[in-house]
């Protein structure tokens, strides 16, 4: 049955590579092809999650290239493929400048995400992880003629890459501990690594996953990543790249639990991100930035779930959030394309203009806010329940995150349904020229995703919830009281914020994401650059200049010796004259001293000049010098030995 996996991954990879290579020549049917391919991928993914195929090929000594669909990935695969299909459908409907390149990159990206989801060994994971990072760079900087977007792609890439080093560390630890045994790098057996290697592996994976999931302290890159096309944001920040960070932690949850501290660290980082990024989201004036911050905050719940061992809740939250957030991003993208703005203030009344789009957006926002009976309400509560069983402060922090979610969700939707003011129009077309149109084919994917956002709470509720918990082996189940309380809390926060029309007090620093990017620059980038520069200066000033300086000094010394000699000479002369007047035969002595001193000066000067001579710039002179050094070294070796 491994052909199913090969098909699942090979199809988008081959189609994507073909589109990317063929380029502008196939622009005409690129969009159609990619949507068809993605539909096939969706069908294959569904079949795969039913049939659970697995595949292993020898890859490296000590690690095979293993892919398989287990309970967790069977849950995620159709979700990823479905969101990818809908996003590509939207992208095809809205059109993009160079479709072949765009869809090619998207398909390659999707293929790498599918490998990430199904990978069973660290080597396969690394392979996919790298391609995912590279493709995300290309996608975020898709409009490469604008240097700001390219540098945004670079920021995202470098930030996640820095975190990715952790994955290499983990692979190295697994390799070192497993000592070339056949399944040393299997993800499932990482928790049985011996001693310190296990902690190193856990730390590495934790850092890599926090980086990809845009958790603190790596969150800043997700803000810059908003420079990508809207469809890219919808995929990268809902079901694919960012989600993969959380997914990886869910997958290695036994490893985190086995170390103890790693699970707590993950839970703490997740909870902190949920709160801090929640505050940041409230402070945003730009819809996409708000959504970006909320993505990191919501992923915080997933990371927290991995920390407290609630795989079912985490996976359900991941999927519910994927549907919710891709609907929101696509809606934001549709408005951006139609009105040319994504400023919250300028989107006033957008919902009235396109009620269907506004309705879908509102449903998704309410899900994001955690309003019953929508998806994120249930899934988030499931995680919070598990957190409460784990530690009470964690639960309180998580609850605070949930309250903030309701607040920023309300802020996102508040102005959409207000009547258009006279000055609203002046904000249109500030970022790009809007078409003033939303096509039905753009609406369909958004509607489907919003429906998904509404119902995917069933993954943790009722009988389906029991089934999911059963296959994933987690126990936490929220009590009706908890559910009701958090629902009430969400409504209680949502309603006033909505009514106030998003006129929340500005939060200091939130707009610029707490200066996290600048902090990263100050803490990391600048020191590295400064070190490089100072090393370069050291080379110029010391290594290369040193020789010259030494030569100059020697010359200088020779000259001053010369002068001293002249003075001495003079003195000697005078003395000699006096002496010769006294005793006429001391002239010989005088001559001898004079000669000795001036010959010393001469030889020092010659030595100074000689010190510069080897640097002729002539290749063959350097060869001679190299040969001489080697001979001397060889002789020395023989003598010393």
């Amino acid at each position: 049955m491994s052909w199913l996996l090969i098909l699942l991954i090979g199809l988008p990879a081959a189609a994507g590579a073909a589109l990317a290579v063929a380029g502008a020549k196939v622009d005409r049917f690129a969009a159609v092809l990619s949507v068809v391919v993605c539909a096939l991928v969706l069908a294959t993914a569904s079949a795969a999650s039913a049939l659970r195929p697995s595949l292993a090929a020898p890859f490296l000594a000590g690690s095979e290239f293993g892919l398989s669909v287990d309970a967790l990935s069977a849950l995620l695969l159709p979700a990823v493929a479905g969101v990818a299909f809908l996003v590509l459908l939207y992208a095809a409907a809205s059109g993009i400048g160079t479709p072949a390149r765009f869809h090619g990159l998207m398909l390659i990206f999707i293929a790498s995400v599918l490998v990430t989801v199904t990978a069973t060994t660290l080597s396969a994971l690394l392979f996919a992880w790298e391609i995912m990072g590279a493709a995300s760079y290309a996608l975020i900087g898709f409009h490469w003629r604008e240097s700001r977007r390219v540098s945004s792609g670079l920021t995202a890439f470098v930030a996640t890459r820095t975190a990715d080093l952790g994955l290499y560390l983990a692979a190295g630890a697994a390799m070192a501990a497993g000592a070339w045994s056949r399944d040393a790098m299997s993800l499932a057996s990482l928790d049985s690594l011996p001693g310190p290697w296990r902690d190193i592996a856990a730390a590495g994976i934790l850092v890599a996953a926090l980086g990809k999931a845009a958790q603190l302290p790596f969150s800043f890159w997700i803000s810059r990543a908003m420079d990508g096309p809207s469809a890219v944001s919808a995929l990268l920040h809902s079901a694919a790249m960012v989600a993969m960070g959380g997914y990886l932690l869910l997958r290695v949850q036994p490893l985190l639990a086995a170390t103890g501290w790693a699970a707590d660290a993950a839970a703490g980082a997740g909870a902190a991100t949920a709160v801090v990024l929640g505050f940041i989201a409230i402070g945003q004036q730009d819809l996409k930035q708000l959504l970006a911050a909320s993505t990191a905050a919501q992923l915080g719940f997933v990371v927290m779930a991995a920390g407290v061992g609630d795989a079912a809740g985490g996976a359900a939250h991941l999927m519910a959030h994927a549907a919710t957030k891709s609907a929101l991003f696509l809606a934001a993208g549709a408005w951006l394309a139609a009105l040319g703005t994504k400023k919250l203030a300028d989107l006033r009344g957008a919902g009235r203009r396109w009620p269907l789009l506004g309705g879908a957006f509102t449903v998704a926002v309410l899900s994001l806010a955690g309003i019953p009976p929508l998806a994120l309400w249930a899934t988030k509560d499931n995680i919070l329940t598990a957190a409460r069983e784990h530690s009470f402060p964690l639960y309180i922090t998580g609850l605070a995150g949930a309250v903030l979610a309701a607040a920023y969700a309300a802020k996102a939707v508040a102005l959409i349904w207000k009547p258009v003011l006279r000055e609203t129009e002046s904000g249109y077309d500030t970022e790009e020229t809007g078409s003033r149109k939303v096509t039905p084919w753009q609406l369909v994917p958004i509607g489907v995703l919003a429906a998904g956002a509404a119902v995917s709470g069933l993954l943790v509720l009722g009988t389906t919830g029991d089934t999911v918990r059963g296959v994933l082996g987690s126990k936490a189940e929220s009590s009706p009281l908890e559910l009701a309380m958090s629902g009430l809390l969400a409504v209680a926060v949502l309603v006033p914020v909505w009514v106030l029309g998003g006129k929340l007090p500005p939060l200091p620093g939130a707009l610029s994401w707490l200066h996290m990017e600048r902090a990263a620059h100050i803490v990391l980038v600048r020191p590295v650059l400064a070190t490089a520069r100072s090393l370069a200066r050291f080379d110029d000033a010391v290594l290369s200049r040193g020789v010259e300086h030494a030569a100059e000094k020697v010359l200088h010394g020779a000259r001053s010796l010369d002068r001293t000699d002249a003075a001495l000479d003079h003195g000697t002369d005078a003395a000699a004259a006096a002496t010769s007047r006294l005793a006429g035969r001391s002239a010989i002595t005088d001559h001898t001293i004079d000669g000795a001193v001036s010959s010393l000066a001469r030889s020092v000067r010659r030595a100074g000049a000689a010190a510069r001579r080897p640097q002729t710039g002539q290749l063959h002179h350097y060869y001679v010098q190299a040969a001489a050094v080697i001979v001397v070294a060889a002789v020395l070796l023989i003598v010393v030995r």
Partner: protein
Amino acid sequence: MTLELALIAAAALFCVGLYGALSQQVVVMVMMGLELMLNGVILAAAAFWWFLAPAPDGQVLLLVVIAAMTVEMAMGFAVAILLHRSRQTDMTEMASDLAG
């Protein structure tokens, strides 16, 4: 066929190459000198391998030497072409940017 004989032949090749690398003015001729030196290295390595330790993986060293020669040739030609294009010269004297 003894080790000494092979090594002396290799040393002779190496030294002829050294003479060429040192004395020639034209970049390409200098490269030929270097090639000849590496030729001597190949012979010496092969002789050591055959007479002292004929383990199968010793041959890998020879492959590495050949790869080094390839790299030397490719970069040498590239630099020679660059030099020729930018300065219309092929003499090493004209490229003394490294003079101190």
